[in-house]
Structure formats: structure tokens, C-alpha cells
């Protein structure tokens, strides 16, 4: 109900300094925010609703623009330079007249008034193309909407970052089909031996690396099947059981930070930067985030060992299996390896990671490594969720809503450091209760607004804030409901909410501090290479 009321906002509320299009965008934004928080419908359905509403209400082809017929008038030529227009078509406030464009929007044209008379205003334009129609009423409400083509909104469904994720999804689906993730886990875990502390470290590292390339949720579920047999070897009262069950979701949550495809909030942030014309190469993203994730993992590992010590000197880790050697499996290994190498080395060869993602998309389907069944079971709703988030960001920026939202608060007074802290805390708090992707979607437009509004002094600061938001969105993990990995670990009954909360909050706090340290010390060394 509240969501629908919010959507109707342009009908009953008029806010200073916000265009009609901005009001519509605000209505859609508030409705989406309410639906995403209260979840009367699934979050991906809200995303699709956002895109649909934008097409209907804000696009040139939508109902609002198509079925509203603003009065137009054709200017009469007095001579080659001077034209007569009705008094009402001239806006004295802006000293402009408004030309009807083919897409339904109106372009303002500054004119010079030569004479005002009974016939109307004589103006001297610089140019008026033939057959031009002017808005007859310069104050008409339709001027408040600057429609864009509906392809802008529909295009979010195939935004380059969506294609990048699709490539990642296909790789993951193929890996699961040919048990590549399982076999890699086996190989990676072998060198860690049988000492409990080493095993815990091994589990965390493997989980983080896998979740950097696969979904955090699928990684957690797979790793639970590895860790459960270990847990069963331990006596009931051994606290190490809790440590083992906890290390998987925590490592999966923070492992997603490592790469652009690690987790959907990264996609939202990268897409928002791309809309501003900035890109972060895959390898550079990893360079920026991996150090802080590694240090965070080390600290969490140490803490888990202290909190949940093992009473046994050794734990038997038994993993059997063999790499499959069928031609299709080998095709998968080749495509997987090539793709990852090309992704990581993007900064050197310059092929964007989204283009590289076409390699697994085309390659895996051409070699029939993934077939209809895998394609049908891809998590499409994640892509839709992200697309809706990107679309929302676009209309918030284009209608001036993002700028308007930030204009009331003296952000500049906070200073860059203060801004970073505020964004971090907001993102971490929200992501504990909301979907991480939704959190990123709601927070990133503000950062973009601040950048466009000139509050963020330069591009490098925008990157820093954006990265900080991405990292923070992955750090909300204090509750079983915070992330699906948490929900999986909690559902086993091996840990109590308080264990999760303790470790989750600790991880988030240390994570934020490390991200801050990176923002101040490490990122300034790397970012200039991409911001120029």
C-alpha cells in the first residue's frame, strides 16, 4: 500500500527544484525501496516493475508521453531571422522557447526578443529548422519530463555488466556440471594437511577464491558438503564445530568482494560508474580489493581459532574424486582458464571483461558444455535484480533526482573522510537487513549525485566512495537473514545466532577499518592509473 502511495507521489506532492520527471522518478524510487524492504513481492519482481514503470512513465514511447498532446504552434517567419511566436510560448524566466523533438521531449532554445506586439513576440533565434513546432504553452507540465528512448531502460537487461555476470554464471554452471569446483577444492585443500588450524585456513581460502568467481551462495552450499563430514568427526561439545560451520559463510561473503563478478553489488557499482563514463578493469578491481580481503581473512581466521579452539590435534580430511577427462570437460577447463586469464589481464590487453565474457557464453554453448538444462537453471532473477537497480540509477541521474536528493544536506561539510564513513556505515547497516544488491542500488545514486554535484572533488574520490560502497555491501553478515550463505550455515543448526552475530559484527568492523586503510593508503597508488 505504502509503495503504491509513494508511486502516486507526483499527483499529490510538488517539491521545489525537482522537475516532474524527477517527481515520477522519486515515486518509482520510493516504491521500489519500500517493496525491496518489505518484500510484498520478490525483490527481482520489484526490479522488473521498476523497468516497466520507467518505460511507461518516463520514456518517449510510454503512455505518459504518447497519450499527452501538449499544444504546439508553428512560428511564423517575418524574415530570415525574425519570427513571430505567441506570447505564451515564450518563457521570460528562462528566455527560451521550447522545440518539440521527434522523441517527444522539448529542447530549450535561447532567443532574443526583438519586439512585443499584439501579434505576439518577435524573436530572433540563431537557427530554427524548417517545420519546427514550438510548445505553445511554455509552462506546460510536459516540459517537466525529458523522456528518453525506452531502449535505455530495456537495455539495462543486456548492460555490459549483465553480460559479464552471464559469462560468470555459465562458467559456474559448467563447473558444477563437470565437478570442476569440487576437484579444485580437493587440490587446493591438500597442502593444508590435517592440523585443525590449517584446515580452517584452507577452507576459508578455498571458499573465498571460489566465491570470487561463483555465486557466494552456491559456494557456501558446496563447501558445506565438504565441511560437514569433518564436523561429524568431532565430539558434540567441541567448539571447533562452530568455527568450521562459521568460516564458510564468512569467507564466502567476503570472497565475493575480490572480483567484479564475485557478487551482484559489485555489478551495481561498476554499472553506475560506467554510466558516468568510467570503467574499472577486472584485474585492477582485484588489485584494489584483494589485499584488504586477504588481511581480513587472516584476522578472522585467527579470531575463529581463538574463539572456537579445537580439542583434537588432527582432523581427517577425506576428499576423493578425479578430474573428468571427457572432451567436453577438457573444453571447459580450456575455456575457464582462458577466460579467467583474459579477465585478470584486462589492463594489459584492453579487451573489456564484458567482451571476454562472450568467450564462455559462446564457447560453452557452442561446445555444448552447458546445454538447455543448465541454461534454464541459471539464476536469471539475479540478472533482473541487477538490471532494475541499474535502470533506477539511470533515471535518478537523468531526471535530476539524485542531485536533488543530495542538495538539502551540506555534504561538503563532512569532508571526504566523513563521507566515506557515512556511506560505509549506511551500506553495512542496510545490507544486514536488506539484500546486498538492493543496498548498493539505493546507496550508489547518492554517491553519483555527489560527484555530479561537485561535492566529490575528483574522479578518484568518486571511485574511492564507489568501491567503499561495494565493499561495505558485502560486509553486512551479522544475522542469519543477512545473506543466503549465512542462512545456509545457520539452517544446519550447528551455530547459534549469537555466534553468527559476534563473528559477523567483528568481521564487518575490521573489514570497514581495513577498507578505510586501503582507501587512504593503497587505492591512491592504484587509482590514478585508471582515472588518468
Amino acid at each position, binding site marked *: 500500500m505504502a509503495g503504491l502511495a509513494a508511486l502516486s507521489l507526483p499527483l499529490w506532492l510538488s517539491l521545489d527544484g525537482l522537475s516532474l520527471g524527477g517527481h515520477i522518478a522519486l515515486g518509482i524510487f520510493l516504491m521500489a525501496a519500500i517493496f525491496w524492504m518489505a518484500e510484498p513481492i520478490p525483490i527481482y519482481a520489484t526490479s522488473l516493475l521498476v523497468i516497466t514503470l520507467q518505460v511507461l512513465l518516463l520514456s518517449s514511447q510510454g503512455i505518459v508521453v504518447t497519450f499527452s498532446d501538449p499544444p504546439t504552434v508553428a512560428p511564423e517567419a517575418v524574415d530570415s531571422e525574425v519570427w513571430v511566436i505567441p506570447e505564451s510560448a515564450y518563457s521570460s524566466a528562462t528566455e527560451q522557447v521550447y522545440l518539440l523533438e521527434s522523441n517527444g521531449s522539448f529542447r530549450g532554445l535561447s532567443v532574443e526578443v526583438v519586439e512585443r506586439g499584439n501579434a505576439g513576440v518577435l524573436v530572433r533565434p540563431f537557427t530554427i529548422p524548417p517545420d519546427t513546432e514550438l510548445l505553445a504553452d511554455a509552462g506546460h507540465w510536459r516540459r517537466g519530463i525529458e523522456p528518453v528512448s525506452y531502449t535505455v531502460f530495456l537495455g539495462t537487461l543486456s548492460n555490459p555488466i549483465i553480460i559479464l555476470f552471464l559469462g560468470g554464471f555459465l562458467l559456474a554452471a559448467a563447473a558444477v556440471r563437470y565437478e570442476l569446483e569440487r576437484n579444485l577444492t580437493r587440490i587446493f585443500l591438500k597442502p593444508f594437511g590435517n592440523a585443525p588450524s590449517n584446515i580452517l585456513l584452507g577452507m576459508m581460502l578455498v571458499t573465498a577464491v571460489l566465491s570470487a568467481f561463483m555465486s557466494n551462495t552456491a559456494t557456501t*552450499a558446496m563447501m558445506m558438503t565438504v565441511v560437514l563430514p569433518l564436523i561429524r568427526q568431532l565430539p558434540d561439545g567441541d567448539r571447533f564445530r562452530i568455527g568450521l560451520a562459521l568460516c564458510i559463510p564468512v569467507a564466502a561473503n567476503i570472497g565475493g568482494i575480490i572480483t567484479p563478478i564475485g557478487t551482484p553489488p559489485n555489478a551495481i557499482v561498476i554499472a553506475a560508474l560506467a554510466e558516468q563514463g568510467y570503467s574499472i578493469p577486472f584485474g585492477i578491481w582485484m588489485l584494489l580489493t584483494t589485499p584488504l580481503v586477504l588481511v581480513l581473512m587472516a584476522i578472522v581466521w585467527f579470531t575463529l581459532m581463538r574463539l572456537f579452539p579445537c580439542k583434537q590435534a588432527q582432523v581427517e580430511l577425506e576428499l576423493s574424486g578425479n578430474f573428468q577427462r571427457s572432451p567436453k570437460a577438457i573444453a571447459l577447463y580450456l575455456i575457464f582458464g582462458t577466460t579467467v586469464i583474459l579477465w585478470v589481464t584486462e589492463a594489459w590487453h584492453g579487451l573489456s571483461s564484458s567482451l571476454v565474457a562472450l568467450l564462455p557464453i559462446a564457447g560453452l554453448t557452442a561446445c555444448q558444455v552447458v546445454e538447455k538444462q543448465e541454461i534454464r537453471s541459471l539464476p536469471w532473477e539475479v540478472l533482473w535484480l541487477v538490471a532494475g537497480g541499474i535502470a533506477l540509477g539511470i533515471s535518478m541521474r537523468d531526471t535530476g533526482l539524485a542531485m536533488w536528493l543530495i542538495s538539502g544536506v551540506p555534504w561538503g561539510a563532512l569532508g571526504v573522510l566523513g563521507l566515506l564513513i557515512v556511506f560505509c556505515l549506511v551500506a553495512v547497516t542496510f545490507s544486514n537487513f536488506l539484500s*546486498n544488491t*538492493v543496498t548498493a542500488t539505493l546507496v550508489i545514486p547518492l554517491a553519483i549525485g555527489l560527484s555530479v554535484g561537485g561535492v566529490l572533488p575528483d574522479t578518484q574520490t568518486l571511485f574511492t566512495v564507489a568501491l567503499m560502497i561495494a565493499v561495505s555491501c558485502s560486509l553486512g553478515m551479522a544475522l542469519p537473514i543477512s545473506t543466503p550463505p549465512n542462512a545456509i550455515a545457520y539452517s544446519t543448526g550447528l551455530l547459534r545466532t549469537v555466534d553468527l552475530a559476534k563473528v559477523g559484527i567483528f568481521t564487518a568492523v575490521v573489514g570497514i577499518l581495513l577498507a578505510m586503510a586501503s582507501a587512504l593508503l593503497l587505492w591512491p597508488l592504484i587509482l590514478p592509473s585508471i582515472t588518468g
Partner: protein
Amino acid sequence: MKNELAILCIEDEPDVLDALVRDLAAFEDYFLVETASDVNEAEGVLDRLRASNTAVGLIFCDHILPGKNGVDFLVELHKNPDTRLTRKVLFTGQAGLEATVTAVNRAGLHYYIAKPWNPEEVVACAREQLTRYVIQAGLNPLPYMKILDTDQLSAAIARRDFLTDR
């Protein structure tokens, strides 16, 4: 999530039924355990469950019952789309070869428990069969992770996208 799935036990001897339900006590926190003493009563229970949108995950059914016998009832359930996925256990001491063959071939029988039974076998059987039901019916496995086979449910989550990043 409690009581979203039901276990139905059909047995005409009250003492035997009580013993079976007692053996299933561990499942009562997670599943609705329903009983019936003959096929008629069982159909009433199924109607009631259907009305409250509760699916039947597992049926323990005796063969020799007053009125319609157990195997014929299981064959009917197998034909009915509502109960096709339901895991069916024949729980009997007196089903002859012919009835048992019918149960396997035409009722899609999943398990056979001979009376007198071993309580541990009943628990293991219920765990295994319900795990398969949850996976095959595509239910969210999380509410059942604690009571059912956690390994199999985890593997199913990893394999089949019941849950995704969000």
C-alpha cells in the same frame, strides 16, 4: 515453516500405530504427523491436508486393512498428481509376493519395512525419503537442513539454485 509438510501413517492396529508415531517423534517439530486406521479415514485426512495446502511428503502404509487394502491405495496415490511425488513406504508383515510386486511396479514403492521393525530403520528411512521428497519437489531445503540429510540438501542447493545471491 513448521507443518508445511506432512507424514501420514496408515495402520489399523492402534498399538502398532502408536509405536510407529512414537518412533517418528523426532520429526514432529518439523512435520505434521497424521494417522489413519483405514483407507477411508486416510482419504479424509488427505482432503483436509489438501484444503490447508499441506503436501504429504511421506506415507507409511500397512497392507492388510479393513476395506480397501494398502497396496491398492498406494497405486491410486501414485496415479494422483497431488501425491505422485509423495514417498511411499509399505509397512507390513503380511503382504504376499504378488501384492509387493504390484506395489513396486504400479505404485512406485520407495521402501519396504517388514514388521516387526527396528525403530532406527524407521527413522533412517523417514530421513532419507523426506530428504528426497524435499529435493524432488523443489522445496526450499533450509527449514529441513537440521532434521534431514544436511549433506544431500547442501549438495542440492549447490546444484540447483534453490537460493541465489541477493
